[in-house]
């Protein structure tokens, strides 16, 4: 199916564990993004990527790592999960005119 897909959709993990959220797009868009959405904060940019092997920090990168070895994949890793990283995470890719969002991953850190 064409589009942008995230996995898993829901995840519960323990404090201190490493967690990887996956994002895959089928359009070959150059730009991809990771956002987190929390009540009162809207969507905040964690990391973005302009192309394979090119990534850069957004507003709230601490505690997260990304990679982009292939254009279509942009995984987000929480190296040692903390309760403050409990959130809904959205991956997006964009054309010149709009961004397309995945369905989100609801992550709970206990």
């Amino acid at each position, binding site marked *: 199916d064409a589009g942008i897909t995230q996995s898993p959709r829901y995840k519960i993990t323990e404090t201190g564990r490493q967690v990887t959220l996956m994002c895959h797009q089928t359009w070959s868009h150059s730009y991809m993004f990771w956002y987190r959405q929390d009540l009162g904060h809207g969507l905040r940019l964690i990391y973005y990527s302009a192309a394979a092997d090119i990534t850069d920090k957004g507003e709230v990168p601490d505690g997260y790592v990304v990679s982009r070895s292939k254009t279509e994949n942009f995984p987000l890793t929480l190296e040692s999960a903390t309760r403050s990283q409990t959130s809904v995470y959205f991956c997006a890719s964009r054309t010149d005119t*709009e961004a397309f969002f995945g369905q989100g991953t609801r992550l709970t850190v206990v």
Partner: protein
Amino acid sequence: EDKVVQSPLSLVVHEGDTVTLNCSYEVTNFRSLLWYKQEKKAPTFLFMLTSSGIEKKSGRLSSILDKKELSSILNITATQTGDSAIYLCAPTSGTYKYIFGTGTRLKVLA
């Protein structure tokens, strides 16, 4: 620092009412402003605005950008319960970086 403020934060109206949602921004290297609708899942694209004073319309929704005032409005006429959602505005900083506001939560009562 880039800043986006949306108002009101939340709004409750009755079906048939007209609503106006506001977005004010201060971003470096402004290029365009996008509006998204978010129901219980991923944001979906509504409009992209690049030029001041030119209204974009889609059915009962319309939007306009004022670059002088660094603001945009989203109008919804004859509201329906299906319009209940969070409306997000996102000015772009540079060519690819969206800065999202916290959104306006609209609830339309039958």
